[in-house]
Structures are given as structure tokens and as C-alpha cells.
């Protein structure tokens, strides 16, 4: 690969948009139009004949590297075009309570955290980290939440027994007698 071809490749790779022919010529003011055309063609042929995963395509706005369509699904499924997102503090705390206290009702989570847990619970259910695992026998028979298989997989745990034991937290987070038991 000669320097001009290398330069075209690097520019097309790093530019945030397709580059037109006249723009590409700016890369090397000393190269003639024919030389740039030749280099572009060499680049296109190289990716084509080498059976690469990407190809040099020409779209309305210019040239750009494109993923081969037959690979797009596998890449989309692997979910890494975007950075993994961290859970918010609120979501993390709620998840922690569910993990250590399951099965647990919304009211109990709200009592521990001191704030409404509605939206956060919905988010965690949407992301399949927790799920409804039953209903309490208590007043209003509220839904009970527990962690999912996906939760274990994300943490690389085989079972909930592998969660770190938190001795000093045991008092705060072990199930308390329910309101009903106290009122009875």
C-alpha cells in the first residue's frame, strides 16, 4: 500500500462523515486527480478481494467504509456499538435491596430507601434484572420482586448463595417481621 492509499484509508476511517472526492484531494495537494482516483480504486479493490468485513462504499455524500450487510446482525446483537451504561444510584440501591431481601414488596423498598420506587422498579423489570415473583399475603396483596437469572449472569454468579455475605448489614437487611405480624 503506498502512502497516498494509506492516507485515504486512515482519513476515511477517522472522519466523522463520508468524504467527497474533492475533499480527499486536500489530503495530499501534490497528488493529481488521477493519482487520487487510482489510490481510491486500489483501496476499494483491496477490501473487495481480500474478503474483508468492511467495504469501501460510495454514497451520495462521498466515500466511506461500510460494514458488510451480512455481518450487521451479528454486530447489532453483540450490543457493543454503544458503551454499556451504569445503573443510576437509585437503581443500584433498589437492586441491592431486592437482591438481599427478596421476595420483597415495593412498600418495603420504599420504606428502606425513603423514596418512591415506582419508576426504578419498572426500569429494573424492563432490563430483566428483577421480576415479579409472587404476591404477598399482606394487605392489598402487593407484588413481590426478586432477582432474575440474567442478574446472576451479569454478576457471574451461579446462585444467590454466592452473593457476598454482609454480616454487618444483616441486621438492617434481613427480613423484619411484617407489619401484619406486629399488628396481630
Amino acid at each position, binding site marked *: 500500500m503506498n502512502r497516498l492509499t494509506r492516507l485515504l484509508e486512515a482519513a476515511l476511517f477517522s472522519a466523522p462523515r463520508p468524504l467527497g472526492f474533492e475533499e480527499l484531494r486536500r489530503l495530499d495537494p501534490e497528488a493529481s486527480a488521477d493519482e487520487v482516483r487510482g489510490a481510491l480504486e486500489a483501496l476499494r479493490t483491496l477490501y473487495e478481494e481480500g474478503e474483508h468485513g468492511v467495504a469501501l462504499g460510495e454514497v451520495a455524500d462521498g466515500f466511506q467504509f461500510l460494514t458488510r450487510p451480512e455481518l*450487521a446482525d451479528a*454486530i447489532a446483537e453483540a450490543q457493543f456499538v454503544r458503551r454499556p451504561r451504569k445503573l443510576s444510584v437509585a437503581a443500584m440501591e433498589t437492586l441491592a435491596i431486592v437482591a438481599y431481601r427478596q421476595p420483597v414488596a415495593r412498600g418495603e423498598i420504599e420504606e428502606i430507601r425513603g423514596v418512591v420506587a415506582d419508576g426504578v422498579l419498572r426500569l429494573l423489570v424492563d432490563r430483566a434484572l428483577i421480576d415479579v415473583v409472587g404476591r404477598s399475603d399482606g394487605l392489598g396483596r402487593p407484588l413481590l420482586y426478586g432477582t432474575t437469572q440474567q442478574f446472576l449472569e451479569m454478576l457471574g454468579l451461579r446462585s444467590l448463595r454466592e452473593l457476598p455475605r454482609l454480616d454487618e*448489614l444483616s441486621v438492617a437487611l434481613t427480613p423484619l417481621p411484617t407489619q401484619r405480624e406486629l399488628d396481630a
Partner: protein
Amino acid sequence: MTMPTTVEDRGFVVQLDEYTGPLDLLLTLIRDQEIDIRDIPIAQIAAQFMDAIDVLGLDEAADYLEMAARLLRIKLQMLLPRPFDAEAWDDPRAELVRRLLEYEQVREVVEWLDARAQARADRYGRGWIQDLPEQPPRPISLDLEHLVRAVEDVVAGMPQPIVHRVVPRPLDVEGATRRITELLATREHVELRELFGEAPTIADVFSVIVALLELARVGRLRLTQREPFGTVGITRESPDQAA
């Protein structure tokens, strides 16, 4: 402020923008005059430091003033008579020297980091990201450490250990009746759960239920439930429709 300022009589040029703090200024003074950092002529350096912060208009920066005060104190301590036994003498400059060396180390690391960052900045990553079909939501990263930390935060955030107060409380049917009536005065339909505040106690719940049943009995409202365990709806009954 960004103009080079020359302190003529002492023969060094200082530029405000170049300093990141008093240690930086001090180190520059020491380096420019090729002074041995372990044997600083403290009176001379202190005077130069004062001049510099005066000329640079830095005399309002607390960090610089604090260093100036420190230098003056060391200068005074150096004037105190020393014991004959040199071994027993605590050099008042020792802590300053330690800090300067530590800071010098930081600057050396900064140079290394700068060079690395520069080299990396000359290598561009992919600039244009192709839209792939049907992007799933952003993946979530999760690890045990964060989970455990969240548990600790929960516990730290609790006002006191959660112990249920078992104070007997009388039902407040009157209050509940008033709240329901007020709500139904402005709206035709409310849901049962809207009648409970945050974290209702068992007494609150019973008060509301007794009040509702009583109001329904006298025909002021109608209770509906579409399915077992479904939400309970409360609809206002106008007096003339009441049975």
C-alpha cells in the same frame, strides 16, 4: 495578566499562566537559580517569592499567601540559635523540602502522561459510526463491587435502624372521610391508592376503608373493581342519583 513580567533586579522572568500553584512557583525559582533543593537559602527564596506574587498580582490567592507565611516562619526558625550537636538539629526546611520533592515527582509524572497523551492523540479512532438495524437499548454494566457498595449506601442512608413503631393508633375515620369528600369535590373519579399517602400505616388504610364503605352506604360514592385484586375505583354519586 498574561504578559511576561520581568523582575529585573533578580534576573528571572516569570509568567503567571505558567504556574499551577505556590509549589510550582517555588520550584521554578529554585530551578532557575540552580539551587540545591536540600539546602535552600530560605531568606533569599522567601524574598523572591514575595516579590513574584506581588508583581504577578497573586497576593490575593490564599494558596500563595499561605506559602508566603510558611516561608517567613521557616526563615525565622533558621535564625534561632542551633544546638552545638549538629545531629540534634531539626532542619526547619525539612517538611518544605519533602513537599517540593513530592511535587517534583508529580511534575515528572505529568511530563510522562503528557507525552503519552500526545502520542495517543496522533492516532485517531473510528470517526463515523454506522447505524445498525434495530439497536437494542444500551447494555447495562453491573458488578458485585457496585452492588455491595449500593447496599452500604442504603444502610448509611437509613435514618435509623428500621424498627417498626408499634404505637397503638386509633383509626381516623373522620379525617379520611374529609379527605375523600374533598377529593371527590374536584374530581369525579379517583383510584383507591391515591387516597393513601406515602408509606401508609395499617391504621391509615383501615381508616380509609371504613370511611369509603360508610360513604358508599349513604350513596355518596360507588366502588368498582374490574377484576379480582384489580385496582379499586371510586366514582362520585351525585345526590339526586343516589338510591
